[in-house]
């Protein structure tokens, strides 16, 4: 299947999903007015990927900001990965946060509490 690549803007993140390496990245800012439109291709791509998932899928989340409109869409992305895990594959989320950004760390912990996938909190000095 084709890889998914979306260039980042001042309001939307850079997205890079690779079905062969099974490494996915969402990086930057996610503050669009309409997040549902932005996340639809990502969720659709994951639906297709779920039919041929890799043995170990890693999603790198490296967000500087995200709005509440994105937060439910991000949860949808995690739910797709949760289903892949349920099918017996290994799935990990690497949740990156800048060292002084406790709000972003807490946001990652919230998702970790809601979703049944392994979350690794990765502390970074600066993005």
């Amino acid at each position, binding site marked *: 299947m084709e890889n998914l690549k979306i260039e980042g803007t*001042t*309001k939307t993140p850079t997205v890079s999903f690779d079905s062969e390496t099974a490494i996915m990245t969402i990086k930057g800012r996610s*503050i669009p*007015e*309409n*997040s*549902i439109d932005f996340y639809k291709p990502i969720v659709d791509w994951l639906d297709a990927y779920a039919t041929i998932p890799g043995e170990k899928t890693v999603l790198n989340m490296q967000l*500087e*900001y995200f*709005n*509440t*409109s*994105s*937060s*439910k*869409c991000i*949860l949808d992305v995690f739910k797709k990965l949760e289903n892949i895990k349920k099918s017996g594959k290994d799935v990990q989320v690497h949740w990156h946060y*800048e060292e*002084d*950004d*406790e*709000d*972003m760390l*807490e946001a990652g912990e*919230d998702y970790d*509490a*809601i979703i049944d996938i392994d979350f690794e909190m990765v502390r970074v000095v600066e993005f």
Partner: protein
Amino acid sequence: MTLTKIQEIFDLYDSMERKNIMLSFKGDMSTDLLTSILQIIENKLDRFGESPKVKKRIFNILVECLQNLYHHIEQPYKKVGSDAPSVIVMVAKNMSGYAIITGNFMLKNNADVLKNRLEEINGMTQDEVKDLYKSVLADGKMSEKGGGGLGMIDIARKSGEKLEYGFIPFGDGSSFFSLNVKVNQ
């Protein structure tokens, strides 16, 4: 220009100056404007040398406030000659920190729903606000705009202070809602 008019303009300026307003806008909210306001404030916070933590909190709250204005604007109260619904946004800096102030018209019924929500949030401890955020996020319901009622909860969570708000009801079924969100340094 007449003296009265000059005085009017100065009074507006002076009132904002005394309230330490960094930025003020009154008019209709578009996506371009929203982006510009965010950029202006981000640059100013950089110039002031704010800590990344304070900067991020202000930026996050401002995003939610501006997007609330963008999505939920209603203006049954229409003055002659003003076609687009109009809002007010101000960002102020004082001794203790920052304040993000917004004002917009709402339908009275929606204003009542919002008022209940704000009362509920303000009656909670910070930990309860965090738990509410998590449970609303987890319930999976999504509004048409995607937020699903998380906006005000997130604003309260990031602010860490009680939300200040008020409503002025108008006879035509509309209400003017104003919100003052504080972020301490």
